[in-house]
C-alpha cells in the first residue's frame, strides 16, 4: 500500500508574507500529501522540533528575507541533533551563488522564483521514494 507522504511547509525568520508557501502547500495537498503548515515568523528551533514531532518525510522551507545561509544550516543541525531524518528542500528568493553552500549544508534542492509546482511536487515524491 502506498504510504501517505507528509511534508512540513515552514516559514522561518522575518518574511512578511507567505503567499508562495501557501501555494506550494496547496499543490502538495492536491497531490494527495499531508501538509503541516507552520505559519510565519518561526524560529529554526520551532521548525526543526516541529518537523521531528510531525515525523514528516520532507521539510520544505520558504525564505524570502535573504537570511537563508544562516537559517537553513541552523534548522538542519537542530533537526539532526533531535533525531530528525527528513530531507530538506528550500524555496524562495535565493541567489544562484548561495545554492552550492546550501546543498553542502544538507539541502536536497533549492527551488527559486518561477519554479513549476509540478516540478516541486514530483521532486518531493522522488525524494521520498529514494529515501525508503
Amino acid at each position, binding site marked *: *500500500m502506498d*504510504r*501517505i507522504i*507528509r511534508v512540513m511547509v515552514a516559514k522561518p525568520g522575518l518574511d512578511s508574507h507567505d503567499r508562495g508557501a501557501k501555494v506550494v*502547500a*496547496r499543490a*502538495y*495537498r*492536491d*497531490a*494527495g*500529501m*499531508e*501538509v*503541516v*503548515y*507552520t*505559519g510565519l*515568523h*518561526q*524560529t529554526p*528551533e*520551532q521548525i526543526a*522540533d*516541529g518537523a*521531528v*514531532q*510531525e*515525523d514528516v518525510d520532507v521539510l520544505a522551507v520558504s525564505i524570502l528575507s535573504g537570511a537563508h545561509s544562516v537559517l537553513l544550516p541552523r534548522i538542519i543541525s537542530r533537526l539532526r541533533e*533531535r*533525531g*530528525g*531524518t527528513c530531507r530538506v528542500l528550500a524555496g524562495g528568493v535565493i541567489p544562484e551563488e548561495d545554492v552550492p553552500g546550501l546543498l553542502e549544508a544538507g539541502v536536497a534542492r533549492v527551488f527559486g522564483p518561477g519554479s513549476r509546482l509540478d516540478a516541486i511536487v514530483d521532486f518531493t515524491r522522488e525524494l521520498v521514494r529514494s529515501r525508503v
Partner: protein
Amino acid sequence: MELVSRLLAGDAAALARAITLVECDPPSPRDLLAAIYPYAGKARVVGITGPPGVGKSTLVDQLATAFRQTHAEVGVLAVDPSSPFTGGAILGDRVRMVRSSADPGIFIRSLATRGQLGGLSQATANAIRLMDAAGRGLILVETVGAGQAEVDIMNHAHTVLVVLAPGLGDDVQAIKAGILEIGHVFAVNKADRDGADRTSSELEAMLEMAPDRAAGGWRPPVVRTVARDGRGIPELVQKLDEHWDRRQPELGAWQRRQAAAELAELVGAMARSRLQDWAVKSGRWEEVLDAIVGRRLDPQRGAETLVSHYLNCRPGEDQGSKTGGRIGRRKDA
C-alpha cells in the same frame, strides 16, 4: 524493539515515528502497541471540540502552555479533515500554536482524518496511548466538532471541553444535539466580541434543560475566554481541574467502560472482516448477493444466512435472534 525503549524514555523522534506507524490502517506493528500498552493509562486526557473557526487551536495553545506549570510534559493531538477528493490535507493548527511550538516540553502532532471514520478514532486512541507511554502526563486532543468520529474520539478524554464563539447564531441550536451532550466544560471564546453575553446565556439555558449528569450531578460550567490574549484561561484551567478532581472516584469504572467499548468495536471490526473474507472466498457472498438483487432474499435475511453459515450454528437457534426475541424469552424462562 529499540523504538519501544526510546519511546518509553520519552524520546520525541521515537514517539513521532511510532505515531506514524499506528496511524496506518491497520496499524502496522501490533507488537509496538502491545509493548507500550502496560506503560500507558497514566495520562490525563482533555478533549477539545467545537465548530470550525471558534478559536480551538489558539485556545489549545493557551491551555498547553498553562498546563505546563503543573505538568513536565504536555502532548497535543490536533485532528484535521483530509480532502475527500485527493486524500491530501493541510494541517494548519501549528499556525495558531505559536507559544506551544516554541516550548520543547510540548509535543504537538497533527493528524489527518484520512477518510476513515471508525479507523480515525482508533488511530487517535493509539496515538494518545503512545504519548501517554512516552511520559506526556497531560494530553490535549483537538478535533473539529462535526461528526460521529469526533464524538467517538471524545470518548477517550477524561474531560471534554466544548468551545463556541459568538456569532454562530442558530448554529448553537443546531449543534446542541451533537456536542452539547458530550461537553463537561464549555468555553465561549472570543468573548470580547458582540453577542458573547447572548451566546453564554443561551448556552446556560440549554445546559439547564439538560438532565443532570450521573456521578455527583456535575453541572457543566460556561467560561468566557479570549484565547488571543489569554483572558479567562486561568478560570478555564480551574474548571477543567475541578472536573478532573470530581472524576477521580469513578475513574476505575470509567476506564472499564472505555475498555469495553473499545473491545466491542475491535471485535466487531475483526469479526466482520473475517466473515466477509470467508464469504467472498467461499463464493457465498456472490450467491447471497444474487439472491438479494433478484429479490428472492431480503438483505436482513441474507446477512443472517451468511452469519449463521459462518458460525455453523443450528438454524433454529439464531432464527429468533433477529428481533432480539431470544434474549427476551430467556429472561422470561
